[in-house]
């Protein structure tokens, strides 16, 4: 099977791409993009300086800070001396890249580091904390009782009293002790983080979300054997607008309803020979491809619905009702055979109830409520959040502010839909 890929304006980018190009084993560019998420560490040096000065280390509230150790503050002009610190980091870490943008220090460790590490999500942050602590200690000639422990604590928070780093030194991904399920770290970015990293561009956020979900699917065996083609096609159609299907569905149903999208998806699937209507009963001829078509329809319905009201609040109900309607209309399985509908119902309930959910932007793929669906749900929530004009309490502009800055430091993450699609053409387009 060969596919064509289109951009957000419905224009062809690359054509006649074999499915094998989507395989992470053969596509080095995709592996590099995924690697960026593991080996990039960042810290707001302004925050580090003020935290050390105030002694406000160890707090664990997301909004606010409950801890302040009196008498422990260390006044270190870190920003003023950032070049010295950066030079030392270069020596100790031998990073592939190290840049500062408005006080945000971004370090990309060499690929070899994550190849060596058994736990390649935790290793970069721990290793960087050691190097940065020593760099600061040397820069300011700190002795044992001059606050070296404060520096390390500011970087890693309560770790190892807490089971994950909780300080100012950040990585994109959550360490395994903080997430649900093994090999799920690629799924630990929140929807808001992905949307911010994508600069709120709808197709970029979908592609980025899918890349991460796809990486996790690959990592934990969801994309081998019987399931390999299912996730490859999902990535291609829902994630990358293969054959312009998602774009066409949106364009044709832009003034319509969820039901219109369902009808059109079914019609296209019949026309393309993926399903057939035999005496009023639908039958599937190509199950993974049907799933990919259904998933494109789900994304189109979300974009139309959330785009219409410029809010992400309805995303969960759109996704669950789309799948419900699809099942009722065809008698065929909905996206991911019920996993998305179940996850969307759970997500929808949590984002409208007293049980602790928050809005669409705070969800992440590995969370218990939505992890039942791998790949097909989170990209739709990302698309919805791109359209949100501030109806949510927790929005990318506030809770994921740092991700917008990271876009500048990591150009490989911008325009990512196009970059992924070009990568499918092979090494020459990396």
């Amino acid at each position, binding site marked *: 099977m060969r596919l064509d890929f289109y951009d957000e304006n419905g224009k062809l980018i690359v054509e006649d791409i074999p499915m094998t190009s989507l395989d992470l084993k053969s596509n080095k560019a995709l592996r590099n993009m995924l690697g960026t998420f593991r080996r990039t560490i960042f810290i707001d040096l302004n925050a580090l300086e003020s935290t050390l000065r105030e002694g406000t280390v160890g707090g*664990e509230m997301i*909004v606010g800070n409950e801890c302040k150790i009196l*008498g422990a503050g260390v006044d270190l002009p870190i920003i003023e001396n950032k070049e010295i610190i950066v030079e030392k980091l270069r020596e100790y870490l031998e990073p592939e890249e190290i840049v500062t943008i408005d006080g945000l220090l971004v370090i990309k460790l060499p690929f070899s580091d994550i190849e060596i590490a058994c736990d390649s999500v935790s290793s970069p942050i721990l290793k960087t904390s050691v190097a940065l602590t020593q760099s600061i200690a040397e820069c300011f000639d700190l002795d044992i*009782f001059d606050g070296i422990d404060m520096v390390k*604590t500011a970087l890693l928070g309560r770790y190892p009293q807490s089971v994950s780093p909780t300080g100012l030194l950040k990585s994109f991904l959550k360490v395994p002790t903080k997430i649900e399920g093994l090999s799920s770290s690629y799924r630990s970015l929140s929807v808001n983080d992905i949307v911010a990293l994508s600069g709120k561009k709808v197709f970029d956020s979908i592609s980025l979300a899918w890349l991460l979900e796809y990486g996790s699917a690959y990592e934990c065996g969801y994309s081998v054997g019987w399931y390999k083609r299912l996730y490859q096609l999902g990535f291609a159609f829902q994630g990358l607008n293969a054959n312009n299907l998602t774009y066409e569905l949106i364009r044709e149903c832009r003034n319509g309803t969820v039901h219109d999208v369902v009808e059109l998806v079914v019609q296209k699937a019949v026309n393309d020979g993926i399903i057939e209507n035999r005496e009023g009963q639908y039958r599937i001829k190509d199950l993974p491809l049907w799933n990919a078509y259904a998933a494109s329809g789900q994304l189109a319905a979300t974009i139309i619905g959330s785009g219409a009201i410029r809010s992400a609040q309805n995303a969960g109900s759109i996704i669950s009702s789309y799948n419900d309607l699809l099942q009722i209309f065809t008698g065929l399985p909905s996206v991911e055979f019920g996993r998305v509908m179940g996850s969307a119902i759970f997500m929808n309930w*949590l984002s409208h109830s007293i049980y*602790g959910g*928050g809005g669409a932007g705070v969800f992440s793929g590995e969370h218990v409520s939505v992890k039942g669906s791998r790949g097909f749900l989170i990209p739709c929530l990302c698309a919805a959040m791109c359209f949100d004009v501030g109806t949510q*309490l*927790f929005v990318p502009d506030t809770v994921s502010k740092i991700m917008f800055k990271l876009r500048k430091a990591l150009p490989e993450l911008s325009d990512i839909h196009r970059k992924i699609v070009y990568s499918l053409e092979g090494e020459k387009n990396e």
Partner: protein
Amino acid sequence: MNEKRNLMVERLKEIFDTDDITDKHTSFYHFGGWKQSKRKQEFIKRAKQIAESRGIPIYLRDREDIGVPLGQRFYEPLYISSTDTLCERDDLQLINNSAIQQMGDDIKRSVIMGLDLAHRILRERLGKEVTPETINHYMEVVNHTVPGGVVAQEHMAEVNPELTKDSYAKILTGDGELKDSLDQRFVIDVDRLFPEESAGRINDEIGSKIFQVTRVPTLAVRIADGGIVHRWASQQTVLAFIAAYSVGGGAPLADFAFAGKHAQVITLGNTTWPRRARAPNEFGGIPYGYIGDICQADRVSDSLTYIMESIALGGILYDLIWWGGYMGGGVGPVNGTASIYTNEVLDEFCRYMDEWIQHKYGGYATVKPDANIIKEISQESVCHVLDEYDNYPVLLEEHWGGGIRLNVISTVASVATGLATGNSLASLLAGHYVYSHLVKEAMGRNAWGGGDAVDLVSVPDLVSTFPDGALVPELRGPNIFSSMVAHSAFPIGGITASHVARGHPWILSPIVKAAFSDPNLIFDFRYVRKEIAKGAKREFHFAGDRDILKPGGSG
């Protein structure tokens, strides 16, 4: 020998029933075996009744063929330090002492939530007004929902308030004007509860932020664990917001819940590592710095007493309940823990070191920490305490194990170093140094297997930049390998002493400090040892009672 020193000697004379506590000779094996203990006689009598009624034997102390025949040594009773309460060792066992249990329960069932985010949701998403009047109304409602009252749906089952009468919510803010305009039944009034200077600094730090301190019922943490606490509080709080502000269902509820459960919540303890996995708000996850904040003795007593009360609190919490109970898997190490809060021993040794510091350095926090200072103070502490053990063989008899003595010695060194330097890192280094090296020089390797194992690791760890080390002392706790055995007294003592020496009104969090000044708590954290004494005498009024559910119960 000062007056307080005499008190320790008098205690030893009394409990060993001798005038000469320097006598190195004694007659063992002539004390009457287990029968010398009134408690054990009670236990045996009751055990026989239980065995008869249930048909399965229980507690066979009077059988000579089962285990070691207890009572070969003299069963000396114990005075709880700072009290006149004389009790048996069995009275300090976790299961036998309701005050110790409630102390843990009151910590575990507490959670603090910021209300500012919730108020923002009300104002910005729902267009509601938030005023002192609406907050007062909300506080009435939340004091209906948190103990188990229903507001949202018909046919929901409600909780008998008699079972949850220890459950409530209060407000904490540093904004004096707002505080004064709130219904005082719901306010934790820092100005009234703390000395003026401390109150001022706590208020300044909290500022205009508003926190809700919620106590879920003791029964809740008895049927579940610390993980239920922030969830219970959050859910009942959201329901109270719905009712108090007439908020409909939908998206804002999820934001309320997210704010309360995740975004602005202060749980006291972190989740622990998988092999010892426990939910938030369990004791192994509580950082050392919170112990001195939870302890409220600084509001009512002198510095040393505050340190001693904190040590008792932390020692019991970590060593008796966490290590002995949760981790050891049962009845718990009563002896090592009791040694730090009985018979005035630790008080006396610390008082000696306090005077030595005043004489040597001229006051608290007057000397800059370095390795030589730590060594100097530690050596003095060790020499003094070992001398005292030599002087009073009955004290050796009372502190009968190397681990027990080391617990005491290292705590004295740590407290003294904290007082002299005002530096918590130096105090911890002193404690670990004494445990791992100094005492060994004098006494050989004397601790139990889990003793200096971690201290040897801790000394280099504390001054490293490793991820596993170099965490500031106030944030360390028993979830760290190098802090993970049952001698928590010295870190608590040293850290608390370091901040006491510099006159700090809290150790780690002004919010936690203020939250535990609440007079409605069942356990009085101003007087830790007096409360434990009440438990030993069976005079402590605990919560979480289910008697009304018994046949014939009423309420």
